[in-house]
């Protein structure tokens, strides 16, 4: 039985774009604040529901809806950090883990109250549209997500590398006290970074709503997969996330040639543990080593 390898690799690449998009927020918040954002799943879910309201109830264009959604969540994220998350910034890690987990539960309940537990799907004229390339059909929605993944990577790199705030964010993540000494308003930096992380999560959610059916429980499996990607990528690097997504997606796709598809996720989690133990720098660490040599 011969599987169409090129087709498999193409879909894996598109999937990598999805993985990356849904993981940037997680990586950014961890990188800057060393906080594991368990509410990431809740934000993605809320992003999906808000997109649903915009697209289904208000008739917005599915690809333009995120333009409205992302700024809303950016502000939400900033407020969340300023009034709540800030207070556990220097507490032991378990505090932030549980705080954000609690927030996730609250977010779920609000969704249950507003939308009931019914599974929702968004069907637009773009839903089944494909782009044909050499006998391989590419879903337009997934292609858009892929490009957003690349765009986000480029924009984030430029932001972190060239702008004042970006550099301030990197400085704060390296050494908070030293940053304060050189005059960086670290409080503001944290707010912005957290806001961005939340905004990225909502971006992912609003786009994924076009592809997947969702309910208030949505996001859990994406969050868990997100950990695999972020760890693979090196936990703190945006480029790492992109690389990690690519490696993971391709590994998963190729693995079906040898193992049961049902065990694909096992591969991801096993990789998570192995990479953490053996290669803490992840992909970014490897690239760094490669560059240095």
């Amino acid at each position, binding site marked *: 039985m011969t599987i169409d390898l090129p087709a498999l690799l193409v879909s894996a690449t598109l999937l990598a774009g999805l993985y990356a998009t849904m993981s940037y927020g997680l990586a950014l918040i961890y990188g800057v604040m060393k906080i594991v954002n368990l509410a990431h799943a809740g934000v993605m879910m809320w992003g999906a529901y808000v997109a649903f309201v915009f697209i289904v109830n208000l008739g917005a264009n599915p690809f333009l809806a995120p333009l409205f959604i992302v700024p809303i969540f950016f502000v939400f994220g900033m407020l969340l950090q300023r009034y709540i998350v800030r207070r556990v910034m220097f507490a032991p890690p378990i505090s932030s883990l549980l705080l954000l987990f609690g927030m996730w539960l609250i977010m779920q309940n609000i969704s249950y109250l507003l939308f009931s537990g019914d599974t929702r799907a968004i069907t637009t004229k773009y839903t089944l549209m494909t782009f044909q390339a050499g006998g391989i059909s590419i879903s337009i929605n997934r292609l858009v997500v892929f490009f957003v993944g690349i765009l986000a990577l480029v924009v984030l790199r430029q932001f972190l590398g060239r702008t004042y705030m970006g550099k301030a964010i990197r400085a704060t993540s390296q050494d908070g006290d030293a940053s304060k000494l050189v005059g960086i308003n670290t409080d503001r930096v944290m707010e912005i970074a957290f806001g961005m992380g939340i905004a990225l999560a909502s971006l992912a959610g609003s786009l994924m709503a076009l592809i997947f059916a969702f309910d208030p429980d949505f996001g859990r499996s994406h969050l868990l997969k997100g950990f695999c990607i972020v*760890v693979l990528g090196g936990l703190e690097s945006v480029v790492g996330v992109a690389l990690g997504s690519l490696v993971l997606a391709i590994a998963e796709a190729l693995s079906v040639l040898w193992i049961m598809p049902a065990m694909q996720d096992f591969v991801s989690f096993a990789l998570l543990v192995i990479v953490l133990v053996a290669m803490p720098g992840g992909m970014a660490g490897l690239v760094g080593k490669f560059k240095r040599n």
Partner: protein
Amino acid sequence: MPAKEVLRSWKTWVSLAGLIFLLWIPFSGIGGGYLQTLGFLTFLYVILSTAWNILGGYTGQISFGHASFYGLGAYTTSILALRGVSALMTMPIAGAVASLYGLVWGYPCLRLRGQYFAIATIGVGEATRLLMLNMDDLIKNNDLLKGFLQEGVLTGGATGLMLPTPPDIHAYALGFYYGAMGLMFAALFISWWVKRSKFGLGLFAINMDIDAAETMGVNTVYYKNLALMLSAFMVGIGGSIYAQYIFYIDPQTVFGFPMSIAMVLMPTIGGIGTLAGPILGAVVYIVVQDRILTANLELGALKLSLSTLHLLIYGGLLVLIVLFEPKGLLGLQKRLAKWWEKRGIEGARAKRVS
């Protein structure tokens, strides 16, 4: 503590009354017998909570993958029981299997610090669940391992495993109530003993500053792994009890992420790193949850079922505890006690002055 002092202290008598109450519950008929079920579940969860606390509270290694031990304990007992081994006999084996598994993944992972370890445990928990879910399909084509299948079933995959129920299930449940209570006290004793021992001292030292502890001569690797193995053993036994009481296990329930989270939440809500914290947390988890899931508030014409808000209440509780009292409910109690004392002293001082 001199015996006379113990006898005179009100705390002793109060605790004794509490113990008698616990022993009497099955015969009290409170809630038509529901209190006995709640009691059993509370005992079970106290065991889990206390066990997690040894690794997470005393040693400071936060594990989000403890469900892997729970599940292994449950499955070991079920698999052996279905092959004719007496279920009660399987309990120490269940604990041992879980403990061994702890060593296998613990040894490499415990080298990781703080958040890294926590994230790794998430991976371990999920990987274990998936492995057990697909175990039957994985080994059915392997000539070596095929023999473990009984009618094509080892773990039962997604279907899970069903244990036969005993003829007199009420007496059985009663026995388990007392059995679980006994095991709970055993677990608490172990936790208490660890806390007072040199081992425990080493764990607390590792928690505070692992490098300093290492410098002082604490064999941190050995201690950490031992703590994990002990914790795993206790949780494994918990899983075994669970399987024997519910008579049905499936991978999503016993290996699932929600189970791991529950084991983190309970000691944290109650008071992480203390002896009594896990107890308080387990009670809150079981009893308060029961109330929330089933209570109905009626304000005039407005009827509100609290269960539609249970996630909100639970999440809200977590958020409040983390923000305002990270030491959990126990910390809250101590703060209130101090405040009460201070009021007393100031009151006395005011009296003296006037």
